[in-house]
């Protein structure tokens, strides 16, 4: 008996193609979404790091000049900018903070300023406007125009904290939209790769540089002040609350480093991000029916296993900066292999 609705034959239904294979992805598209995600992630790191430093250092008149200088110079160093860049080499220590902030926010000559990162993120997005969702595009476009606006510096000066926070929020919102408004096919996997690779690199750098400063400066800092800076590091990695919950509120340098490096299930740790990247490339390989693991998959798989079975004692024995530098170099090989295997036509 008829149910009153339109009748569909099996042949009709097959046309709807629910089981249709994945859409192929242009190599250029993969390149662009990967960099789009990397630059958004980088902008978030820059904004968060500056925000923490401003809160922590702007008024600390009683810090030794030497230490104050180190703690500000960390910011460009995390992003591999030479100390002399942007006229930061010379000048009084008291104004170093302001100069670093200006260099890292609005300086169009600094390819790692917020301004340039957001511009790059948007340029990449613009080239694949049809790949990403309207919501993602609008969010990225709004933050781009907000930092390009005539009154951007004025708004920054009124409240650096609010301004930087708007960049962090925009990145978070963008990532949420990325997860919720596009299909989780290759396109999405390449955004995940970009995000996690950027995060691994940042986290290794920021942890390693702070470890070097704070362990060497023990005689310049009393214990409460040391703890404040370790907490600052956790905040720079958006990890303070998660850390507290798992470490019973005890702040200690090695614990912080171990948490940010080896924690299994917190998205800001190196280990978690490596797993994320490894999963993403595996999904890309699966979608394109590849049988053998390629260079990207091999390096990430190895790194993933290494971190999964890592002992804290290994990390200490090798030395924190050395251990993290090795991960950094593996990640740069991944980036190169991606370039060779997927983006270059």
């Amino acid at each position, binding site marked *: 008996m008829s149910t009153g609705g339109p009748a569909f034959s099996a042949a009709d239904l097959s046309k709807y193609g629910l089981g249709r294979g994945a859409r192929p992805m242009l190599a*250029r598209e993969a390149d662009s979404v990967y960099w789009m995600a990397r630059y958004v992630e980088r902008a978030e790191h820059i904004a968060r790091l500056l925000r923490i430093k401003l809160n922590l250092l702007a008024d600390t008149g009683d810090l030794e000049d030497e230490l104050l200088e180190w703690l500000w110079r960390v910011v460009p160093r995390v992003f591999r900018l030479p100390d002399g860049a942007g006229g930061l080499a010379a000048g009084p220590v008291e104004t170093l903070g302001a100069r670093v902030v200006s260099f890292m926010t609005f300086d169009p000559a600094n390819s790692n300023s917020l301004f340039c990162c957001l511009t790059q993120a948007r340029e990449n997005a613009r080239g694949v406007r049809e790949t990403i969702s309207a919501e993602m595009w609008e969010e990225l476009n709004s933050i781009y125009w907000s930092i390009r606006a005539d009154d951007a510096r004025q708004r920054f000066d009124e409240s650096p904290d609010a301004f930087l926070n708007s960049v962090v929020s925009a990145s978070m919102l963008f990532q949420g939209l990325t997860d919720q408004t596009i299909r989780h096919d290759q396109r999405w996997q390449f955004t995940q790769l970009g995000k996690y690779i950027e995060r691994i690199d940042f986290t290794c750098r920021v942890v390693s540089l702070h470890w070097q400063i704070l362990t060497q400066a023990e005689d310049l800092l009393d214990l409460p002040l040391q703890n404040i800076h370790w907490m600052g590091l956790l905040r720079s990695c958006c990890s303070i609350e998660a850390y507290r919950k798992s470490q019973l509120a005890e702040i200690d340098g090695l614990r912080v480093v171990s948490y940010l490096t080896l924690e299994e299930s917190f998205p800001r740790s190196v280990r978690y991000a490596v797993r994320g990247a490894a999963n993403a490339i595996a999904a890309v390989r699966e979608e394109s*029916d590849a049988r053998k693991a390629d260079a990207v998959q091999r390096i990430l798989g190895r790194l993933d296993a290494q971190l999964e079975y890592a002992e804290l004692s290994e990390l200490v024995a090798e030395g924190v900066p050395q251990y993290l530098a090795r991960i950094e170099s593996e990640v740069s090989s991944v980036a190169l292999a991606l370039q060779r295997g997927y983006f270059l036509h």
Partner: protein
Amino acid sequence: MFTQYQMDGLFDEMFERPDSPRQHYADVHKRLESLGKAEFAKRVRMADLTFRNQGITFTVYSDQAGVEKIFPFDLIPRIVPDREWQTIEKGLSQRITALNLFCQDIYHKQKILRDRVIPPELIYGAKMFRREMIGVKVPKDIYMHICGTDLVRDHRGEYLVLEDNGRTPSGVSYVLENRAIMKRVFPAIFADYRVRAIEDYPYNLLRTLKHVAPPHADDPVVAVLTPGIYNSAYFEHSFLARQMGVELVEGRDLIVENAFVYMRTTSGLRRIDVLYRRVDDDFLDPLAFRPDSMLGVAGLMNAYRIGNVTLVNAVGTGVCDDKAIYPYVPDMIKYYLGQDAILANVPTYICARPDDRKYTLENLNKLVVKATNESGGYGMLMGHQSTQAERDDFAAKIRDDPRNFIAQPVVELSQHPSYIQDPGDKIGGATLGHFEGRRVDLRPYILYGDKATVMPGGLTRVALRKGSLVVNSSQGGGSKDTWVLEEEENQS
């Protein structure tokens, strides 16, 4: 806001007489009057912000500083009643049908030339006539799948065809975005009317593209070919690809192997069957056309001629855009369809003809002179607004290369109220303004697949400079949402 509105003796789309709006504008007029300056200014600002945040922009070639610009959007809608639209729709369908028959004919038997309806030298002298296409069979004999025909209204309100854009007409994305923003900014005004929907355009476009897929493609792969993000219409290319759910490709994404076209993907090469190309003929294939082109793909023309890939629009349709061939469209309609043209042309003097040339040179101050192969408002002389030096310059150019010029009497385009801001008069972040008449035209979009489909509406372009007759976006034009109303018996 209409208090100082001037009609200046022109045909006004909204007003029959000052203070007396035409019947189909009465509701809009009432709403606008009651809205107040501050409220209207607020809505304008809201629309501008939406355009900017959505990145609905175009690029002006001559503008070095601001690469991306918002296409100025004029919030007052242009309304076309159903009875007027029916004529336009019939006229445009008739026109695109004849133009397709014409293309098929001139690239094959050339009967229309042999019967001396059109002088052969005009066709062979046309820059956009592609000898490479002679004898090439295109799927379903369709050449012009998409056409944007520019209509103007003269001082009596009669619709005239100003030109056909049969290569890669742009602007349809603005039509769709204007409508979306209009609904957001003026939901109440929109609800007063029964406006015909245009939102199915991308779906119809995709159907049109699939209709001409090569026969070997069961489930054809369609892609939009763009010159890239620095092209002035890049927003539109990406918009259409997104709306149709197809790939947007650049020349560097493509490769031709064994006369098939492939795109390079993360997992190797994938075949493309239909290319909606937004790249001009000249740049499509460095082997066939300009060897210095970086935008196209080597070997594409060969794949196309064999029939392994379909290009939309076909190569060679530019001959219909030639302004010296345009005057013959009514003759084509008569010749191929045995009908009289429903929409009239603007009278045109073809400078290649001695009599026309003489008249043109003697009356430059009363005529609009246009280069036959330019578009976008470039290469024009507006005689009545020109200086003697400009006229002398054009006279020399015409004598030098008469085939390259036509002249038309100045059409006093109809005007429509536009929102004009008063700089310095601000409330909050919004700039206050008032309404003034500005000249408009209308570009409807026609798709030609199994039949001709005219999108109900189109791009109403506005010459935002006072007194200007040039509506092109590259020359400071803006646009309006265009409302075609449902049939009158359905009108509440």
